[in-house]
């Protein structure tokens, strides 16, 4: 027997949350169509299957310096108005607009942190502009490469259907994807928003929207 969630995913009977999208399943079976009233706040986590966490927490009277760092077992909440006063400090602040525009890469290290370059489609070369050798990369990193570790034709991002793939173009100082070991030239890796690229000594972040 299967339970279908509100988004149409089939789940085995007895599951509490949809394996696919995370929607609560019990709400569907127990309280048919009406939107489930929000349950009392505290329980933010529950074990996947039934058994409750058996251990009642090591009540170590670790006084002194370490005491502040020990997590209490039960969650106690305090009100904190939304949005928070200093958005960069607290979480639950609204994040950037949902994906709409094209892909970009953003400099994530050094003096030019935050500078964005548009990732052109269907393919986009990253490197340093050099008329003499005929290198005309779509993303010209000459200005932001203070260490001069980026090759003229360093890396390439290709759009393949809905996916973005990155590859190294045989650069001198290499390309790393999410801190991977140096990519072999031509070895394509799929990029997801938020992924990190290292070209030479420069950190970049890939994003969409």
């Amino acid at each position: 027997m299967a339970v279908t969630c509100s988004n149409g995913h089939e789940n085995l009977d007895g599951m509490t949350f949809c394996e696919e999208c995370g929607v609560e399943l019990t709400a569907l079976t127990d309280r048919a169509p009406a939107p489930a009233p929000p349950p009392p706040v505290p329980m933010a986590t529950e074990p996947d299957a039934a058994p409750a966490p058996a251990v009642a927490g090591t009540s170590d009277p670790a006084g002194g310096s370490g005491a502040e760092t020990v997590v209490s077992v039960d969650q106690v909440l305090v009100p904190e108005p939304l949005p928070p006063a200093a958005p960069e400090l607290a979480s639950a602040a609204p994040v950037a607009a949902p994906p709409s525009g094209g892909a970009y890469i953003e400099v994530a290290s050094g003096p030019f942190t935050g500078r964005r370059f548009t990732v052109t489609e269907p393919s986009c070369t990253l490197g340093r502009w050099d008329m003499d050798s005929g290198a005309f990369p779509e993303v010209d990193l000459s200005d932001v490469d203070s260490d001069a570790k980026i090759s003229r034709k360093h890396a390439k991002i290709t759009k393949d259907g809905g996916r973005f793939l990155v590859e190294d173009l045989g650069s001198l100082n290499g390309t790393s994807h999410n801190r991977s070991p140096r990519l072999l030239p031509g070895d394509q890796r799929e990029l997801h928003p938020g992924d990190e690229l290292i070209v030479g000594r420069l950190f970049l972040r890939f994003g969409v929207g």
Partner: protein
Amino acid sequence: MQTVDIIVRSYRPSVLSDSEAFSQTVLIAPRVSGEAAPTGAASVALVVDVSGSMSVENKLEHAKSAAQLFIDHLRPGDRLAIVAFDQDARAVAPLGTSADASAMRAAVAAMNPGGGTQMGKAMKVARQLMSGRGAESAGRVIILTDGETADEDMCRSEARAASQAGLPISTYGVGTDWNTELLTYIAETTKGRVRHIQGAADVAGDLAGEFRDLQDTALTNAEIEVAPSQGVTVRSLHRVVPDVVNYPIGASGDGAVTVGDISRNPASAPQFLLDLVLPTRPAGAVRVAKILMRYREVGLTDVRETEPMNVVVHYTADRGEVAMVDPEIKRLIDLRAASGMVAAAEKAMKAGDTARATTLLTSARAVTGRLGQAQVTTKLDQAIEELAKSGDLSKETRTTLLSGTRQTSKLDGFGG
């Protein structure tokens, strides 16, 4: 029998429904309770810089005291190796037990300062010695140095080799001449710690704290695996206790992230913050991610995993409910932010942007002041003043600031 589980909690358990995308921070705190396996033991390689500069302020003498403390506190089954290095590296004492204590003491007493600094060679010797430890023991290399090393590339490749072998390396820099970037790289790569020792007199106590903590290690080679639900994006994973470290994690969150050793002492057990971006949804409870931890128990060799924990978020239109947050997590988020601001200020300094560095340090100061972190706040005040006067920061201020804001909990030594 010991029980292992993870506490998983959301900063804001309820979020606004039918609104824009929200970020959510989740606390992950591994917890170990019950009796440890009787065969559990610690294996440590203490690597001591004996280059000429270590004779200044009697640093080497203090390092020797630390080694003697280690020998004094070897439990049955614990093993200790001591490696000394200048331009060469040698195993002063091979991996031995408390039965070898007298030979170890004599070897420590015979260490003399002199010569250059090639730390990579010592790391290799330590790694080779540690390969003889049992897979069931908690292993760690603890390095003490006071200067720049001549073989930085070898240090980096040795760090990667140690990481492959599941061997954490903790690095302790005394004074201000050491290479912050390199020691940080080694510790982060191997999931060890990097610490700054203020003065020579603190050497023994700080190193003893690390050894004490190693003896408390309950789990090694721990990995955290995050499975986000559809539409949920993983932004980042940080260790925030005992110090702030960023663990690279892909946006899809797939694959496990190695987080290293887990202490059974709740005061020094690591805690992690996971940042997620949640999609817009109608009202109702939603599991936004499943989190589990995989680990090896010290004393045993098989790999186990905890029950997967659900991160459940309640989407609601009730703004009063949405305003409720977890103050413990807020404190950790703020500590992480302060550490990030100081790191960003350091970068701004390097780029010559003093104005931005001042702004960042002032923001960090506001956070640490609010959290009652007196020591760090004082240091930040000094730094801001120094910056205003000279337009730059001394190496000493940079080092103490960076490590001061990173460190969120102190390791206790052998009780005095």
